[in-house]
């Protein structure tokens, strides 16, 4: 049975696109057939993070409007043969995305893939509500910071009321993914702790992604962090999170960055 997963947050810049690419690639590496769908109409970026920006011909809107077939718009990843991308449109016409069009495309993707991962735009407008509309599960990407936690709470409220599942009286299965976590700062009381965030949001934890240079490095070269450097701390955390999505029980821990001696000596932070 195919699963539709929305990666959402409310707040921008917390790591939705990075997490979509990393989780999608990790699930594909474990043998699942995965499509990642960019819902950020007008500001597409998943193609860039996936390293497929030069291969986009048709997009989500073209398929919604019947200009292109789904098979023409899907881009196969060059590294993993069971990972695909459906890019967003770069044209600014956000109204081109309709509820009925999204319903049709998601239904068709369900027949072809094990996982349909929808990368939501920031905000709570049309793009964000349509990205979560037909989801079975949701990953709420949250930074240990007050504005991000507040927006996550708002998004959780929307997942419980505005989705097709909620309207049928069912639940969207929700998971919090904490990104940019710095365990040192949290233990010194400078940053909200994991327990603080989970307590406030009352939603189960999917994973803890440590703040790391590897995330930026991977997006610089257009590769999901789980493919670019699978041994790095954030990649290991994403791979564990993907296994949990697949129903495995994996002990929760914060993978730590192995600091080089010189970095430690000079007090350089992993950023």
């Amino acid at each position, binding site marked *: 049975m195919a699963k539709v997963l929305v990666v959402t947050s409310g707040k921008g810049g917390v790591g939705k696109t990075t997490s979509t690419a990393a989780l999608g690639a990790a699930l594909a590496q474990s043998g699942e057939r995965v499509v990642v769908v960019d819902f950020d109409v007008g500001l597409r970026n998943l193609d860039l993070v996936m390293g497929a920006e030069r291969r986009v011909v048709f997009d989500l809107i073209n398929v919604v409007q019947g200009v292109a077939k789904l098979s023409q718009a899907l881009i196969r990843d060059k590294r993993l043969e069971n990972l695909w991308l459906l890019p967003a449109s770069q044209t600014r016409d956000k109204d081109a995305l309709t509820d009925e069009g999204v319903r049709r495309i998601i239904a068709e993707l369900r027949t072809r893939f094990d996982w349909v991962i929808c990368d939501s735009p920031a905000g709570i407008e049309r793009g964000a509500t349509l990205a979560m509309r037909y989801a079975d599960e949701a990953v709420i990407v949250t930074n240990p*910071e*007050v504005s991000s*936690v*507040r927006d996550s*709470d*708002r998004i959780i*409220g929307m997942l419980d*009321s505005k989705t097709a599942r909620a309207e049928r009286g069912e639940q969207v299965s929700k998971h919090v993914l904490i990104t940019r976590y710095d365990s040192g700062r*949290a233990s*010194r*009381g*400078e*940053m*909200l*702790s994991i327990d*603080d965030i989970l307590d*406030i949001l009352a939603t189960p934890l999917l994973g803890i992604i440590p703040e790391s240079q590897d995330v930026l490095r991977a997006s610089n070269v257009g590769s999901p962090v789980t493919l670019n450097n699978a041994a790095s701390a954030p990649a290991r955390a994403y791979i564990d999170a993907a296994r949990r999505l697949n129903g495995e029980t994996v002990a929760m821990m914060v993978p730590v960055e192995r600091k080089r001696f010189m970095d430690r000596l000079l007090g350089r932070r992993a950023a």
Partner: protein
Amino acid sequence: MSMSLLRLLGRRAGSAPVARERLQILLAHERSQRGQPDLLGILREEILAVVSRHVKLDPDKVLVKMDRGKSMSTLEVDIELPNGFDQLVRTRLPDHQLA
């Protein structure tokens, strides 16, 4: 001396507990408001409608403030009235009584 000592201890304890407490108060309020009409907005509209039945209001001279506390909140409506506004009221009253 004691203040600076407290500040020093406070700094060492970090600001995360403050963040946590602020979020808890705010979210308790926001969750209770979800799907509810905007009560503050309605109060503001209706209070201004009642006052402007009697006095001509300059919208720039009306301040509405809200302060939400843990156990009590206050709504402050501050309306600046021009001198001689009661004369204006007297001349306007007959209209109002007719209506």
